[in-house]
Protein backbone atom coordinates (compact mmCIF):
# COMPACT_ATOMS: atom_id res chain seq x y z
CA UNK A 1 0.00 0.00 0.00
CA UNK A 2 2.84 2.35 0.79
CA UNK A 3 5.02 1.64 -2.22
CA UNK A 4 3.63 4.60 -4.13
CA UNK A 5 4.52 7.46 -1.77
CA UNK A 6 4.24 10.64 -3.78
CA UNK A 7 6.21 13.18 -1.74
CA UNK A 8 5.28 16.09 -4.04
CA UNK A 9 1.58 15.43 -3.56
CA UNK A 10 1.78 15.05 0.23
CA UNK A 11 4.00 18.12 0.49
CA UNK A 12 1.40 20.15 -1.36
CA UNK A 13 -1.31 18.93 1.01
CA UNK A 14 0.97 19.80 3.95
CA UNK A 15 1.64 23.28 2.51
CA UNK A 16 5.39 22.84 2.47
CA UNK A 17 8.05 22.89 -0.21
CA UNK A 18 10.47 19.98 -0.15
CA UNK A 19 13.82 20.28 -1.91
CA UNK A 20 14.03 17.78 -4.78
CA UNK A 21 17.27 16.39 -3.36
CA UNK A 22 15.43 15.38 -0.15
CA UNK A 23 12.44 13.71 -1.82
CA UNK A 24 13.91 10.26 -2.34
CA UNK A 25 15.23 10.00 1.22
CA UNK A 26 11.94 11.17 2.72
CA UNK A 27 10.03 8.65 0.62
CA UNK A 28 12.32 5.87 1.92
CA UNK A 29 12.00 7.07 5.54
CA UNK A 30 8.23 7.24 5.34
CA UNK A 31 7.95 3.86 3.64
CA UNK A 32 10.12 2.31 6.40
CA UNK A 33 8.06 3.91 9.15
CA UNK A 34 4.77 2.86 7.53
CA UNK A 35 5.92 -0.73 7.27
CA UNK A 36 6.85 -0.64 10.98
CA UNK A 37 3.51 0.80 12.11
CA UNK A 38 1.44 -1.62 10.01
CA UNK A 39 1.35 -4.04 12.96
CA UNK A 40 -1.32 -1.96 14.75
CA UNK A 41 -3.86 -3.91 12.69
CA UNK A 42 -3.33 -7.03 14.84
CA UNK A 43 -4.47 -5.14 17.94
CA UNK A 44 -7.16 -2.98 16.36
CA UNK A 45 -9.30 -6.00 15.48
CA UNK A 46 -10.01 -6.54 19.18
CA UNK A 47 -11.53 -3.07 19.61
CA UNK A 48 -15.16 -2.72 20.64
CA UNK A 49 -17.30 0.25 19.72
CA UNK A 50 -15.83 3.60 20.73
CA UNK A 51 -16.99 5.20 23.98
CA UNK A 52 -16.82 8.80 25.15
CA UNK A 53 -14.33 9.39 27.96
CA UNK A 54 -15.27 10.71 31.43
CA UNK A 55 -13.86 14.22 30.87
CA UNK A 56 -16.41 16.97 30.17
CA UNK A 57 -16.16 20.36 28.56
CA UNK A 58 -15.15 23.09 31.00
CA UNK A 59 -14.75 25.99 28.61
CA UNK A 60 -16.99 28.97 29.34
CA UNK A 61 -20.18 29.64 27.38
CA UNK A 62 -19.63 31.92 24.43
CA UNK A 63 -21.24 34.91 26.18
CA UNK A 64 -20.07 38.12 27.89
CA UNK A 65 -17.27 38.85 25.43
CA UNK A 66 -14.31 40.95 26.54
CA UNK A 67 -13.97 44.54 25.31
CA UNK A 68 -13.14 44.62 21.58
CA UNK A 69 -9.45 45.27 21.08
CA UNK A 70 -8.44 44.34 24.63
CA UNK A 71 -5.82 41.82 23.45
CA UNK A 72 -5.31 43.22 19.96
CA UNK A 73 -2.06 45.10 20.46
CA UNK A 74 -0.41 42.26 22.38
CA UNK A 75 -1.26 39.78 19.63
CA UNK A 76 -0.47 42.06 16.69
CA UNK A 77 2.96 42.74 18.15
CA UNK A 78 3.93 39.25 16.96
CA UNK A 79 2.57 39.65 13.43
CA UNK A 80 5.22 39.89 10.68
CA UNK A 81 3.43 42.75 8.91
CA UNK A 82 0.68 45.08 10.18
CA UNK A 83 -0.88 48.23 8.69
CA UNK A 84 -1.83 51.39 10.58
CA UNK A 85 -5.44 50.29 11.19
CA UNK A 86 -4.49 47.11 13.02
CA UNK A 87 -4.87 44.69 10.11
CA UNK A 88 -2.36 41.94 9.30
CA UNK A 89 -0.92 42.50 5.81
CA UNK A 90 -0.60 39.46 3.50
CA UNK A 91 0.28 39.10 -0.20
CA UNK A 92 -2.59 38.88 -2.72
CA UNK A 93 -4.65 35.70 -2.44
CA UNK A 94 -6.11 35.71 -5.95
Amino acid at each position, binding site marked *: MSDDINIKKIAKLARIEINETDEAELATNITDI*LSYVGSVK*KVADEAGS*PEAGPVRNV*LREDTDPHEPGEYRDALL*REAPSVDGDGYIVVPPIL
Partner: protein
Amino acid sequence: MQHSKQTIEDILTQLSTGETTAVELAKLSLQAIENDETAAFLGTYEDVLDQAKVADMRRADGEKVSLLGVPLAIKDNILIEGKTASAGSQILKDYVAPYSATAIEKLQAAGAVLVGRTNMDEFAMGSSTEHSSYQVTKNPYDKERVPGGSSGGSAAAVGGGLVPAALGSDTGGSVRQPASFCGVVGLKPTYGAVSRHGLIAMGSSLDQIGPLTNNVADAERIYNIISGPDKRDSTTYQKDTYSSPKNTPKKIGVPRQLLETDGLDVAVKENFNESLEMLKLAGYEITDIKLPALQEALAMYYIIMPAEVSSNLARYDGVAYGLRTDDDDLFTQYIHTRRDGFGPEVKRRLLLGTYVLSAGYYDAYYRTAVRARQVLEAAFRDVFKEVDAIVTPTTPAPAFKIGDKSDDPLEMYLQDVFTVGANIGGVPAISIPSGTVAVEANNLPLGLQLVAAKNHEQTLFTIGKDFESTER
Protein backbone atom coordinates in the same frame (compact mmCIF):
# COMPACT_ATOMS: atom_id res chain seq x y z
CA MET B 1 32.42 20.07 35.86
CA GLN B 2 29.33 19.18 37.81
CA HIS B 3 27.94 21.63 40.30
CA SER B 4 26.62 20.54 43.63
CA LYS B 5 23.18 19.02 43.30
CA GLN B 6 20.64 20.12 45.85
CA THR B 7 17.09 19.08 46.41
CA ILE B 8 14.33 21.67 46.68
CA GLU B 9 13.85 20.64 50.28
CA ASP B 10 17.55 21.38 51.07
CA ILE B 11 17.24 24.77 49.41
CA LEU B 12 14.07 25.67 51.27
CA THR B 13 15.73 24.79 54.59
CA GLN B 14 18.69 27.03 53.76
CA LEU B 15 16.33 29.84 52.79
CA SER B 16 14.25 29.54 55.94
CA THR B 17 17.27 29.53 58.24
CA GLY B 18 18.72 32.54 56.44
CA GLU B 19 21.77 30.56 55.35
CA THR B 20 21.16 31.82 51.82
CA THR B 21 18.79 34.11 49.93
CA ALA B 22 16.83 33.78 46.70
CA VAL B 23 19.09 36.44 45.16
CA GLU B 24 22.20 34.49 46.16
CA LEU B 25 20.75 31.27 44.70
CA ALA B 26 19.73 33.02 41.49
CA LYS B 27 23.23 34.46 41.08
CA LEU B 28 24.80 31.03 41.63
CA SER B 29 22.48 29.49 39.09
CA LEU B 30 23.13 32.22 36.49
CA GLN B 31 26.86 31.82 37.02
CA ALA B 32 26.64 28.04 36.61
CA ILE B 33 24.65 28.52 33.40
CA GLU B 34 27.27 30.99 32.14
CA ASN B 35 30.01 28.37 32.66
CA ASP B 36 27.87 25.46 31.44
CA GLU B 37 29.68 23.15 29.02
CA THR B 38 26.57 21.11 28.15
CA ALA B 39 24.74 23.94 26.31
CA ALA B 40 21.57 23.16 28.26
CA PHE B 41 20.10 26.66 27.99
CA LEU B 42 18.94 28.70 24.99
CA GLY B 43 18.81 31.81 27.12
CA THR B 44 18.32 33.22 30.60
CA TYR B 45 15.57 35.73 31.43
CA GLU B 46 16.58 39.35 31.96
CA ASP B 47 14.54 39.75 35.16
CA VAL B 48 15.92 36.79 37.15
CA LEU B 49 17.43 38.89 39.93
CA ASP B 50 14.26 41.01 40.17
CA GLN B 51 12.18 37.85 40.55
CA ALA B 52 14.58 36.68 43.26
CA LYS B 53 14.38 40.04 45.10
CA VAL B 54 10.59 39.79 45.10
CA ALA B 55 10.85 36.24 46.48
CA ASP B 56 13.14 37.44 49.28
CA MET B 57 10.69 40.25 50.11
CA ARG B 58 7.76 37.81 50.15
CA ARG B 59 9.72 35.63 52.57
CA ALA B 60 10.60 38.63 54.73
CA ASP B 61 6.86 39.44 54.86
CA GLY B 62 6.24 35.99 56.30
CA GLU B 63 4.68 34.47 53.19
CA LYS B 64 4.83 30.67 53.13
CA VAL B 65 4.44 29.16 49.67
CA SER B 66 6.06 25.96 48.58
CA LEU B 67 8.72 27.12 46.07
CA LEU B 68 9.51 30.58 47.41
CA GLY B 69 12.93 31.56 46.05
CA VAL B 70 13.68 28.25 44.31
CA PRO B 71 15.35 28.65 40.88
CA LEU B 72 13.70 26.65 38.08
CA ALA B 73 14.39 26.15 34.36
CA ILE B 74 11.62 25.98 31.77
CA LYS B 75 11.56 24.05 28.51
CA ASP B 76 11.49 26.36 25.50
CA ASN B 77 7.96 25.25 24.49
CA ILE B 78 6.18 26.56 27.62
CA LEU B 79 4.96 30.16 27.41
CA ILE B 80 5.87 32.93 29.86
CA GLU B 81 4.28 36.30 29.11
CA GLY B 82 6.77 38.75 27.62
CA LYS B 83 9.50 36.15 27.16
CA THR B 84 10.83 34.33 24.10
CA ALA B 85 9.59 30.77 23.54
CA SER B 86 10.84 29.22 20.30
CA ALA B 87 10.13 25.49 20.79
CA GLY B 88 13.67 24.96 19.49
CA SER B 89 12.51 26.06 16.03
CA GLN B 90 13.58 28.75 13.58
CA ILE B 91 9.94 29.36 12.70
CA LEU B 92 9.42 30.81 16.23
CA LYS B 93 12.91 32.30 16.55
CA ASP B 94 11.83 35.71 17.84
CA TYR B 95 8.41 34.76 19.18
CA VAL B 96 7.55 36.53 22.42
CA ALA B 97 4.67 34.94 24.32
CA PRO B 98 1.64 37.23 24.82
CA TYR B 99 0.39 35.15 27.78
CA SER B 100 1.65 32.61 30.32
CA ALA B 101 0.95 28.90 30.55
CA THR B 102 -1.28 27.87 33.46
CA ALA B 103 1.60 25.76 34.87
CA ILE B 104 3.82 28.86 34.82
CA GLU B 105 1.20 31.00 36.60
CA LYS B 106 0.99 28.33 39.30
CA LEU B 107 4.78 28.14 39.71
CA GLN B 108 4.97 31.93 39.96
CA ALA B 109 2.23 31.99 42.60
CA ALA B 110 4.27 29.38 44.50
CA GLY B 111 7.24 31.76 44.47
CA ALA B 112 9.55 30.02 41.97
CA VAL B 113 12.31 32.07 40.32
CA LEU B 114 12.31 31.23 36.59
CA VAL B 115 15.90 31.47 35.39
CA GLY B 116 15.86 30.53 31.73
CA ARG B 117 14.61 28.47 28.81
CA THR B 118 16.16 25.10 28.05
CA ASN B 119 17.12 23.56 24.74
CA MET B 120 14.91 20.92 23.12
CA ASP B 121 14.37 18.97 19.93
CA GLU B 122 12.43 21.18 17.53
CA PHE B 123 8.74 21.16 18.56
CA ALA B 124 9.66 18.34 20.99
CA MET B 125 10.27 15.91 18.11
CA GLY B 126 13.26 13.78 19.00
CA SER B 127 15.01 11.70 21.64
CA SER B 128 18.45 13.36 21.74
CA THR B 129 18.03 17.17 21.52
CA GLU B 130 20.13 16.92 18.32
CA HIS B 131 17.04 18.08 16.42
CA SER B 132 17.15 21.52 18.08
CA SER B 133 17.62 24.14 15.37
CA TYR B 134 19.93 26.11 17.69
CA GLN B 135 22.52 23.91 19.40
CA VAL B 136 23.38 20.38 20.47
CA THR B 137 23.13 19.81 24.22
CA LYS B 138 25.63 17.42 25.79
CA ASN B 139 25.15 14.88 28.53
CA PRO B 140 26.59 16.16 31.85
CA TYR B 141 28.02 12.66 32.53
CA ASP B 142 29.82 12.39 29.16
CA LYS B 143 30.15 15.38 26.83
CA GLU B 144 30.37 13.12 23.77
CA ARG B 145 26.91 11.73 24.46
CA VAL B 146 23.39 13.07 24.12
CA PRO B 147 21.30 14.12 27.14
CA GLY B 148 18.25 12.42 25.61
CA GLY B 149 15.22 14.33 24.44
CA SER B 150 13.18 16.09 23.70
CA SER B 151 13.51 17.79 27.13
CA GLY B 152 17.31 17.31 26.94
CA GLY B 153 18.12 20.85 28.04
CA SER B 154 15.97 20.54 31.16
CA ALA B 155 17.49 17.14 32.02
CA ALA B 156 21.08 18.36 31.50
CA ALA B 157 20.32 21.49 33.57
CA VAL B 158 19.12 19.44 36.56
CA GLY B 159 21.59 16.56 36.06
CA GLY B 160 24.47 19.03 35.77
CA GLY B 161 23.41 20.89 38.92
CA LEU B 162 22.63 24.21 37.19
CA VAL B 163 19.14 24.34 38.72
CA PRO B 164 17.48 22.06 41.28
CA ALA B 165 14.47 21.38 39.04
CA ALA B 166 12.98 22.10 35.63
CA LEU B 167 9.79 21.70 33.63
CA GLY B 168 9.72 19.55 30.52
CA SER B 169 6.99 18.14 28.33
CA ASP B 170 6.38 14.49 27.50
CA THR B 171 4.56 13.29 24.37
CA GLY B 172 6.17 9.84 24.00
CA GLY B 173 8.89 9.83 26.67
CA SER B 174 10.36 13.33 26.35
CA VAL B 175 10.63 13.89 30.12
CA ARG B 176 11.42 10.33 31.25
CA GLN B 177 14.03 9.31 28.65
CA PRO B 178 16.28 12.38 29.16
CA ALA B 179 15.75 12.10 32.94
CA SER B 180 17.05 8.53 32.71
CA PHE B 181 20.07 9.58 30.58
CA CYS B 182 20.99 12.43 32.95
CA GLY B 183 20.46 10.68 36.28
CA VAL B 184 17.42 12.62 37.46
CA VAL B 185 13.76 11.93 38.29
CA GLY B 186 11.23 12.67 35.52
CA LEU B 187 7.43 12.53 35.86
CA LYS B 188 4.86 12.27 33.05
CA PRO B 189 1.53 12.96 34.80
CA THR B 190 -1.83 11.42 33.88
CA TYR B 191 -3.20 12.93 30.66
CA GLY B 192 -5.33 15.86 31.84
CA ALA B 193 -3.64 16.20 35.26
CA VAL B 194 -1.68 19.30 34.24
CA SER B 195 -3.18 21.99 32.02
CA ARG B 196 -1.73 22.19 28.52
CA HIS B 197 -2.80 25.85 28.21
CA GLY B 198 0.34 27.68 27.09
CA LEU B 199 2.26 24.55 26.09
CA ILE B 200 3.18 24.74 22.39
CA ALA B 201 1.21 21.80 21.01
CA MET B 202 2.77 18.76 19.38
CA GLY B 203 0.39 15.78 19.83
CA SER B 204 -2.59 17.17 21.71
CA SER B 205 -3.98 13.82 22.88
CA LEU B 206 -0.54 12.82 24.23
CA ASP B 207 1.26 15.96 25.50
CA GLN B 208 1.73 16.54 29.24
CA ILE B 209 3.95 18.98 31.14
CA GLY B 210 6.05 17.28 33.83
CA PRO B 211 8.88 18.05 36.29
CA LEU B 212 12.52 16.92 36.23
CA THR B 213 14.05 16.88 39.71
CA ASN B 214 16.77 15.39 41.91
CA ASN B 215 14.43 13.17 43.91
CA VAL B 216 10.88 11.83 43.99
CA ALA B 217 9.73 14.17 46.78
CA ASP B 218 10.65 17.19 44.64
CA ALA B 219 8.75 15.78 41.64
CA GLU B 220 5.76 15.30 43.92
CA ARG B 221 6.06 18.86 45.23
CA ILE B 222 6.04 20.36 41.73
CA TYR B 223 3.30 18.00 40.55
CA ASN B 224 1.09 19.13 43.45
CA ILE B 225 1.59 22.76 42.42
CA ILE B 226 1.07 22.51 38.65
CA SER B 227 -1.73 19.91 38.51
CA GLY B 228 -5.47 20.50 38.77
CA PRO B 229 -8.46 21.36 36.57
CA ASP B 230 -8.18 24.42 34.34
CA LYS B 231 -11.02 26.32 32.69
CA ARG B 232 -8.67 27.00 29.79
CA ASP B 233 -8.06 23.32 29.00
CA SER B 234 -11.10 21.11 28.53
CA THR B 235 -8.98 17.97 28.70
CA THR B 236 -8.01 18.60 32.33
CA TYR B 237 -10.00 16.41 34.70
CA GLN B 238 -11.83 17.18 37.93
CA LYS B 239 -10.98 15.84 41.37
CA ASP B 240 -13.63 13.12 41.16
CA THR B 241 -13.22 12.10 37.51
CA TYR B 242 -10.97 9.14 38.30
CA SER B 243 -10.52 7.08 41.45
CA SER B 244 -7.61 7.75 43.80
CA PRO B 245 -5.41 4.98 45.22
CA LYS B 246 -7.26 3.32 48.11
CA ASN B 247 -4.43 1.35 49.70
CA THR B 248 -0.67 1.60 49.87
CA PRO B 249 0.79 -0.17 46.84
CA LYS B 250 1.97 -3.80 47.24
CA LYS B 251 2.04 -5.55 43.89
CA ILE B 252 4.16 -4.56 40.89
CA GLY B 253 3.85 -6.18 37.46
CA VAL B 254 6.61 -6.86 34.92
CA PRO B 255 5.52 -7.02 31.25
CA ARG B 256 8.03 -9.79 30.42
CA GLN B 257 7.29 -9.97 26.71
CA LEU B 258 8.09 -6.31 26.17
CA LEU B 259 11.50 -6.87 27.75
CA GLU B 260 12.33 -9.41 25.05
CA THR B 261 12.87 -6.39 22.75
CA ASP B 262 15.91 -7.00 20.51
CA GLY B 263 17.59 -3.71 21.36
CA LEU B 264 17.66 -4.22 25.14
CA ASP B 265 21.22 -3.67 26.38
CA VAL B 266 22.67 -6.45 28.57
CA ALA B 267 23.77 -3.97 31.25
CA VAL B 268 20.27 -2.45 31.32
CA LYS B 269 18.76 -5.89 31.79
CA GLU B 270 21.12 -6.67 34.68
CA ASN B 271 20.45 -3.30 36.28
CA PHE B 272 16.71 -3.89 35.90
CA ASN B 273 16.91 -7.28 37.60
CA GLU B 274 18.84 -5.68 40.49
CA SER B 275 16.13 -3.03 40.75
CA LEU B 276 13.47 -5.75 40.98
CA GLU B 277 15.43 -7.32 43.86
CA MET B 278 15.52 -3.94 45.60
CA LEU B 279 11.78 -3.54 45.23
CA LYS B 280 11.35 -7.00 46.78
CA LEU B 281 13.63 -5.96 49.66
CA ALA B 282 11.42 -2.91 50.12
CA GLY B 283 8.50 -5.30 50.60
CA TYR B 284 6.85 -5.35 47.17
CA GLU B 285 5.53 -8.43 45.44
CA ILE B 286 6.84 -8.70 41.88
CA THR B 287 4.75 -10.63 39.38
CA ASP B 288 4.83 -11.21 35.62
CA ILE B 289 1.95 -9.71 33.63
CA LYS B 290 0.76 -10.10 30.05
CA LEU B 291 0.06 -6.88 28.16
CA PRO B 292 0.36 -7.75 24.46
CA ALA B 293 -1.19 -4.47 23.29
CA LEU B 294 1.69 -2.59 24.97
CA GLN B 295 4.09 -4.06 22.42
CA GLU B 296 2.22 -2.25 19.67
CA ALA B 297 2.19 1.12 21.51
CA LEU B 298 5.15 2.46 19.52
CA ALA B 299 3.45 1.58 16.24
CA MET B 300 0.23 3.33 17.37
CA TYR B 301 2.31 6.31 18.45
CA TYR B 302 4.00 6.78 15.09
CA ILE B 303 0.59 7.07 13.43
CA ILE B 304 -1.36 9.09 16.00
CA MET B 305 1.44 11.53 16.91
CA PRO B 306 2.38 12.58 13.34
CA ALA B 307 -1.33 12.91 12.48
CA GLU B 308 -1.75 15.35 15.37
CA VAL B 309 1.52 17.07 14.47
CA SER B 310 0.33 17.71 10.93
CA SER B 311 -2.84 19.35 12.27
CA ASN B 312 -1.19 21.32 15.09
CA LEU B 313 1.65 22.68 12.98
CA ALA B 314 -0.69 23.88 10.24
CA ARG B 315 -0.87 27.15 12.21
CA TYR B 316 2.72 28.08 11.31
CA ASP B 317 1.92 29.72 8.01
CA GLY B 318 3.75 33.04 8.33
CA VAL B 319 0.54 35.07 8.64
CA ALA B 320 -0.14 36.04 12.25
CA TYR B 321 3.20 35.34 13.96
CA GLY B 322 6.57 33.69 13.53
CA LEU B 323 8.78 33.55 10.46
CA ARG B 324 7.45 34.84 7.12
CA THR B 325 9.27 34.61 3.77
CA ASP B 326 8.93 37.43 1.27
CA ASP B 327 6.83 36.11 -1.62
CA ASP B 328 4.41 37.54 -4.17
CA ASP B 329 1.43 35.30 -3.48
CA LEU B 330 0.04 33.70 -0.35
CA PHE B 331 0.39 30.02 -1.32
CA THR B 332 4.06 30.43 -2.19
CA GLN B 333 4.55 32.31 1.07
CA TYR B 334 3.02 29.40 3.02
CA ILE B 335 5.19 26.72 1.42
CA HIS B 336 8.39 28.77 1.57
CA THR B 337 7.85 29.89 5.17
CA ARG B 338 7.40 26.27 6.20
CA ARG B 339 10.31 25.07 4.06
CA ASP B 340 12.68 27.59 5.65
CA GLY B 341 11.25 27.51 9.18
CA PHE B 342 11.03 23.77 9.88
CA GLY B 343 13.94 21.34 10.25
CA PRO B 344 14.22 17.85 8.71
CA GLU B 345 12.58 15.85 11.53
CA VAL B 346 9.58 18.19 11.67
CA LYS B 347 9.19 17.93 7.90
CA ARG B 348 9.38 14.14 8.08
CA ARG B 349 6.60 13.95 10.69
CA LEU B 350 4.47 16.56 8.94
CA LEU B 351 4.56 14.55 5.73
CA LEU B 352 3.98 11.25 7.53
CA GLY B 353 1.03 12.73 9.41
CA THR B 354 -0.44 14.27 6.29
CA TYR B 355 -0.13 10.90 4.55
CA VAL B 356 -1.86 8.84 7.26
CA LEU B 357 -4.74 11.35 7.33
CA SER B 358 -5.11 11.65 3.56
CA ALA B 359 -8.03 10.28 1.57
CA GLY B 360 -7.58 6.57 0.89
CA TYR B 361 -5.18 6.00 3.80
CA TYR B 362 -7.09 7.44 6.76
CA ASP B 363 -8.94 4.18 7.52
CA ALA B 364 -5.91 1.96 7.05
CA TYR B 365 -3.65 3.98 9.34
CA TYR B 366 -5.21 6.66 11.52
CA ARG B 367 -8.53 5.00 12.27
CA THR B 368 -6.85 1.65 12.84
CA ALA B 369 -4.36 3.19 15.27
CA VAL B 370 -7.15 4.91 17.19
CA ARG B 371 -8.96 1.57 17.53
CA ALA B 372 -5.75 -0.12 18.69
CA ARG B 373 -5.33 2.64 21.24
CA GLN B 374 -8.76 1.79 22.67
CA VAL B 375 -7.58 -1.79 23.14
CA LEU B 376 -4.46 -0.66 25.01
CA GLU B 377 -6.49 1.67 27.24
CA ALA B 378 -8.79 -1.21 28.16
CA ALA B 379 -5.79 -3.49 28.76
CA PHE B 380 -4.29 -0.94 31.18
CA ARG B 381 -7.62 -0.72 33.05
CA ASP B 382 -7.68 -4.52 33.42
CA VAL B 383 -4.06 -4.88 34.45
CA PHE B 384 -4.37 -2.20 37.14
CA LYS B 385 -7.09 -4.31 38.76
CA GLU B 386 -4.37 -6.94 39.31
CA VAL B 387 -1.28 -4.85 40.11
CA ASP B 388 -0.66 -1.38 41.59
CA ALA B 389 2.08 -0.46 39.15
CA ILE B 390 4.00 -1.72 36.13
CA VAL B 391 7.79 -1.60 36.08
CA THR B 392 10.23 -1.54 33.12
CA PRO B 393 13.59 0.03 32.36
CA THR B 394 13.01 3.62 31.12
CA THR B 395 15.21 3.16 28.04
CA PRO B 396 16.62 0.13 26.20
CA ALA B 397 20.22 1.41 26.60
CA PRO B 398 22.20 4.21 28.32
CA ALA B 399 22.90 7.54 26.59
CA PHE B 400 24.25 7.12 23.04
CA LYS B 401 26.92 9.17 21.31
CA ILE B 402 26.10 12.42 19.54
CA GLY B 403 25.58 11.61 15.85
CA ASP B 404 25.06 7.87 16.40
CA LYS B 405 21.36 7.74 15.58
CA SER B 406 20.74 11.02 13.79
CA ASP B 407 20.75 9.43 10.32
CA ASP B 408 18.22 6.70 11.06
CA PRO B 409 14.83 7.98 12.20
CA LEU B 410 13.40 4.55 13.01
CA GLU B 411 16.39 3.73 15.23
CA MET B 412 15.83 7.01 17.10
CA TYR B 413 12.11 6.23 17.46
CA LEU B 414 12.92 2.90 19.17
CA GLN B 415 14.25 4.95 22.13
CA ASP B 416 10.60 5.40 23.11
CA VAL B 417 9.69 1.70 23.16
CA PHE B 418 9.16 1.53 26.95
CA THR B 419 7.84 5.06 27.47
CA VAL B 420 5.19 5.66 24.76
CA GLY B 421 2.70 3.20 26.26
CA ALA B 422 1.92 5.63 29.10
CA ASN B 423 1.17 8.45 26.63
CA ILE B 424 -1.01 6.29 24.40
CA GLY B 425 -2.85 4.97 27.49
CA GLY B 426 -3.04 8.40 29.19
CA VAL B 427 -1.61 6.94 32.43
CA PRO B 428 1.07 8.48 34.70
CA ALA B 429 4.69 7.28 34.67
CA ILE B 430 7.90 8.22 36.41
CA SER B 431 11.58 7.54 35.72
CA ILE B 432 13.81 7.17 38.78
CA PRO B 433 17.62 6.86 38.71
CA SER B 434 18.56 3.19 39.18
CA GLY B 435 22.34 3.41 39.32
CA THR B 436 25.00 3.65 36.65
CA VAL B 437 26.74 1.44 34.16
CA ALA B 438 30.40 1.84 33.13
CA VAL B 439 30.67 2.61 29.42
CA GLU B 440 34.15 3.41 28.11
CA ALA B 441 35.64 5.87 30.61
CA ASN B 442 32.41 7.06 32.16
CA ASN B 443 29.64 5.89 34.43
CA LEU B 444 26.35 6.52 32.68
CA PRO B 445 23.05 6.75 34.57
CA LEU B 446 20.15 4.38 33.99
CA GLY B 447 16.49 4.78 34.95
CA LEU B 448 13.68 2.62 36.25
CA GLN B 449 10.18 3.40 34.99
CA LEU B 450 7.03 2.93 37.06
CA VAL B 451 3.58 3.25 35.49
CA ALA B 452 0.26 3.41 37.40
CA ALA B 453 -3.46 3.81 36.75
CA LYS B 454 -4.92 7.21 35.82
CA ASN B 455 -4.72 9.70 38.69
CA HIS B 456 -2.59 7.28 40.74
CA GLU B 457 0.52 9.48 40.84
CA GLN B 458 0.61 8.89 44.61
CA THR B 459 1.35 5.21 43.94
CA LEU B 460 4.36 6.23 41.84
CA PHE B 461 5.62 8.58 44.57
CA THR B 462 5.24 5.95 47.32
CA ILE B 463 7.04 3.19 45.41
CA GLY B 464 9.59 5.68 44.08
CA LYS B 465 10.54 6.92 47.55
CA ASP B 466 10.83 3.34 48.83
CA PHE B 467 13.06 2.51 45.86
CA GLU B 468 15.24 5.57 46.47
CA SER B 469 15.75 4.72 50.14
CA THR B 470 16.59 1.04 49.64
CA GLU B 471 20.33 0.40 49.92
CA ARG B 472 21.85 -0.79 46.66
